[in-house]
């Protein structure tokens, strides 16, 4: 009796292990932090890129207005790709684009903006990357749609036409 069921049991065990591992292969194990929607924007003091003034984040964002906060850097290739889309977005009067310059030197960043144009109303200079952490970001590029001091949406990675369309639709 025992001998009869034993091989079947072993085969069953191996098949179930195989299925588990096979499923595991298809799973991506990259973790992306959960996007908490309607989260209050963080409050911090930051240095502005051009004027070198120290401001509080609450002075940058006004109520009843849409903002797109874009974290960028001159050394980041995807930022270069999405830049034309940001330039396009500046034509829209309902939204302002705010930049966070992430771990960059001012010379490189200025060259980048001179070459591709400056879509940003204001730029926060984030030399050591700590301001981006306040936002819960972990790389470049990342964008946040902000309304009434709340994060409405978070976009990880470069923006694309579909996202821009979505943003346009939201701010209308």
């Amino acid at each position: 009796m025992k001998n009869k069921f034993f091989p079947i049991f072993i085969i069953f065990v191996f098949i179930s292990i195989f299925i588990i591992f096979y499923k595991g292969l298809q799973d991506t194990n990259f973790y992306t932090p959960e996007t908490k929607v309607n989260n209050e924007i963080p409050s911090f003091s930051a240095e502005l890129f051009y004027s070198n003034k120290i401001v509080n984040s609450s002075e940058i964002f006004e109520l009843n207005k849409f903002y797109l906060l874009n974290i960028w850097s001159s050394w980041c290739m995807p930022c270069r790709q999405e830049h034309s889309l940001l330039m396009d977005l500046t034509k829209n009067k309902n939204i302002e684009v705010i930049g966070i310059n992430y771990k960059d030197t001012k010379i490189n960043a200025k060259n980048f903006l001179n070459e591709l144009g400056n879509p940003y109303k204001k730029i926060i200079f984030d030399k050591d990357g700590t301001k981006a952490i306040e936002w819960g970001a972990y790389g470049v590029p990342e964008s946040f749609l902000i309304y009434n001091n709340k994060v409405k949406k978070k976009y990880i990675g470069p923006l694309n036409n579909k996202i821009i369309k979505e943003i346009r639709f939201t701010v209308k």
Partner: protein
Amino acid sequence: MKILKLFLIIFFIFSFNHLKANNEIIKNKITKNLRCLICQGQSVYDSDSEFANSLKVLVDKKLNEGFSEKQIYSYFKDKYGEWILYDPKFNKNTYILWLLPILIFLIGGAIISKSFIIKKK
């Protein structure tokens, strides 16, 4: 008198060193307990990525501002979620993780004790 002064100066230097070292130990402990989100399977302490380096700077800043270890953990948990901590809390999502080893231990114990009882018979 001179010797006393010198002694005092040396004493102060060493005592400050100790303070700094103490902070360093806590910082290392905290960064070892934080997961680097862009490098898989590495702690912030082990990693040299841009993200991890900024996190280290921020932990340093928070410690200097007088944050406690727990406050720093909850600060990062607030920003990035539970995943950033290497020590997940016991809740409805993690109870299997915590209870499975105990369960396996009990089942194993049951099997062993059962086979012993059978042998005795």
